[in-house]
């Protein structure tokens, strides 16, 4: 994945949000990243250390990894497949194309003063 370009997107938007919401400085940026996005967390964190500046100079990036989940039409509930390359309900073993999570690439929150 192009982690540096993602880090740039996060930094630019977080800087703009900090301005818009009147933060003096940001201490933490929390994001949610789905398993299917192919993002390497360790590399993204390294990129963050290189990029952070201005109101975000002392901020940390917190990454919440979101597992793939499916809605199983047979069990009528949301389940986590055992692995991302076999989209089946772990209980009834039927496949399901109704993904409920795993593609997130979004902000969760900004913390600051």
């Amino acid at each position: 994945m192009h982690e540096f370009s993602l880090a740039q997107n996060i930094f630019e938007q977080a800087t703009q949000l900090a301005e818009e919401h009147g933060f003096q400085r940001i201490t933490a940026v929390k994001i949610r990243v789905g398993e299917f996005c192919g993002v390497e967390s360790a590399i993204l964190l390294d990129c963050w250390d290189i990029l952070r500046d201005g109101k975000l100079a002392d901020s940390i990036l917190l990454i919440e990894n979101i597992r793939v989940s499916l809605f199983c039409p047979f069990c009528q509930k949301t389940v986590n497949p055992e692995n991302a390359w076999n989209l089946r309900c772990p209980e009834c073993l039927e496949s399901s194309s109704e993904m409920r999570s795993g593609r997130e690439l979004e902000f969760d929150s900004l913390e600051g003063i």
Partner: protein
Amino acid sequence: MKSTTDPGPRILTLRQGILKKNDQEAARLRYLFHSAGIFVVNIVSGPGTGKTRFLEATLKRLLENGFPSAAFVGDPETENDAIRLKRSGAPVRQILTRGVCHLEATMISSQLSGWNLEEFKFLFIENVGNLVCTSNYDLGENLRVVMLSVTEGEDKPLKYPGLFNSADISIITKCDLAKACECDLDLAKKNLHSVRPNIQIFETSAKTGFGIDSFIEYLLASRQEFIKNME
């Protein structure tokens, strides 16, 4: 008591896409394409799957059937693929990404000038050959096609589930070589369905022409549906 200029630590909760800029541009493009009645197909796969040869055959066939179409092709370097695609008779533009591993919506919008989109029935975007990064970038397409060649190994979908899962339909290319490569087509299809249950699969060979007609029929039917929804 805290002054109004020092509100203390606080948390701003938000759900906003990290790729918001790209998503907004893709939405603008989708509206533009929709207004022009052009059906847009984003083709993704690893390098060497045969995207260009397949697209050349598709463009040629569409033109012969009275459906003039255009194409973009993305690569880090060289105009080679655009030169090959132009042999089909279709207008083609090469997008040089200079090392970037995927196409983004702004790369498409910045290359549209001078084209009258209403003259085209389809626009194809041959993405950079990459099995990871292309999956997260919306280009304003109506259909995302993922290709898998018989020369790559049947387990590619299992190794790169994120990309294969993001596609609407799948095309297996170079089927004329399946036997020579000892490719088990049933296993390849099983693996595609494992990461993207129920995905429609076309078995093709751009070299022999096998399966191209079924794909063209599918494209025409999809466009007809798209036009119907416009009215």
